[in-house]
């Protein structure tokens, strides 16, 4: 097991993340699915210690995140959708700072993905399209040889070709033993590349299991995954 999320609780005035638990295994792709406002981003923020929890623990590589944050984060790659950091700084300048924090920064990997994504180092994030911002965040996450890649809606805003390109990268990383955890509301992305699925609804985990088992357990005869999810979200889990 590469990461364990156990009994996460976070209370907001109008929303509660309740007893969220799941595990991530090495060399597997896990799709984190749920509708908007289900608690995906809150869970991911909790996994990165960006929010203060009311309960529960997060551990990576057998160590609790609390107290081992710096060490653990060196082994994690993180990317969030289209949020842009330092919109008026050149990509080259941002990268020049980021790489100093990682002993494992790999310039060759960085250059390779820079070319693959068609990013221009002399541009600023402000000059990038939404899709290119996603790629920039992904580039920063991939270039330091992380063991776990945590991505919040990495395929949102991307054209079908770029989405496919990113899903292929996930599959490649999986072969290298990297664990990929990505949130999405695009069910076809899960179908294409995920080994495991974590389904969250209204702040509660509805299912966390291998995708095959999920389909076997919840899908009806001839039903697509999308139809299954729509039916489940309609009330089956919380009835």
């Amino acid at each position, binding site marked *: 097991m590469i990461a364990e999320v156990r009994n996460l609780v976070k209370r907001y005035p109008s929303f509660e993340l309740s007893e969220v638990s799941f595990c991530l295994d090495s060399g597997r792709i896990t799709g984190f699915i749920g509708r908007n406002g289900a608690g995906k981003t809150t869970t991911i*923020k909790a996994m*990165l*210690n*960006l*929010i*203060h929890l009311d309960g529960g623990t997060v551990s990576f590589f057998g160590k609790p995140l609390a107290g081992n*944050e*710096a*060490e*653990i*984060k*060196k082994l*994690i790659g*993180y990317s969030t959708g289209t*949020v*842009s*950091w*330092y*919109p*008026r*700084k050149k990509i080259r*300048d*941002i990268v*020049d*700072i*980021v790489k*100093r*924090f*990682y002993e494992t920064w790999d310039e060759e990997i960085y250059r390779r993905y820079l070319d693959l994504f068609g990013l221009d180092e002399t541009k600023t994030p402000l000059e990038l399209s939404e899709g290119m911002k996603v790629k920039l965040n992904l580039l920063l996450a991939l270039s330091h040889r992380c063991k776990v890649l945590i991505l919040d809606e990495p395929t949102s805003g991307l054209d079908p070709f770029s989405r496919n390109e990113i899903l292929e990268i996930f599959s490649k990383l999986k072969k290298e033993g990297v664990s990929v955890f990505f949130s999405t509301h695009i069910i076809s992305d899960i179908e294409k590349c995920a080994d495991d699925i974590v389904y969250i609804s209204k702040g509660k985990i509805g299912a966390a299991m291998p995708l095959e088992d999920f389909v076997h357990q919840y899908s009806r005869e001839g039903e697509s995954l999308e139809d299954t999810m729509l039916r489940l979200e309609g009330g089956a889990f919380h009835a």
Partner: protein
Amino acid sequence: MHNILLKEMKLSASILSYLFILFGLMFLIPGYPILCGAFFVALGIFQGFQTAREANDIVFSALLPIAKEDVVKGRYLFVCLIEGCALILMALAVILRMTVFSRSSVYADNALMNANLFALGAACVIFALFNRIFVGGFFRTAYKLGRPFVLFIIAAFLAIAVAETLHHVPGLEWLNAFGTDYFAKQLILFLIGVIIFLGTTILSCRNACKHFEQIDL
């Protein structure tokens, strides 16, 4: 800590944070409330906080492989670096006014506060107020800048008014002594100013680290 300081300097800071260091040289202006120089240096740092907030700097920093409290420490370190540079300029101005320009009539006939060691100590107190009220106040939310800065403005100008008034109080004229007169007494006040700056900043940084752990980014 070296890397996070570098990040503060190259990515988070506004160019104004650096340019406004030059306001430390306001200590050379005769007939002017020179402690306003310290206020303008703080204004430059405030501008840097605004720029950083627009760039999502705090979340970016919190995602770097560092302990969350190092985000706060890095920012405090940067603030102290700017304040330290300004204090060096102010100290140079004090040295010039106490030596080379000690006989200059524009300085000798100065009705306002003279640039001496007491003034330098008072500048340290202004920076201490900034670090406690503004920087500490900012890290209660990591995004609200207005309220802590307004509170700092009020505190800073009250402090400036007090410092400008004190040497008019009978018996305290030596606070405005020119040249090397009352050097020892003023040196003690300067050292007290430095101690207030260091003590306040360290305590404020510790509190800010605690608050920062509790807030949601």
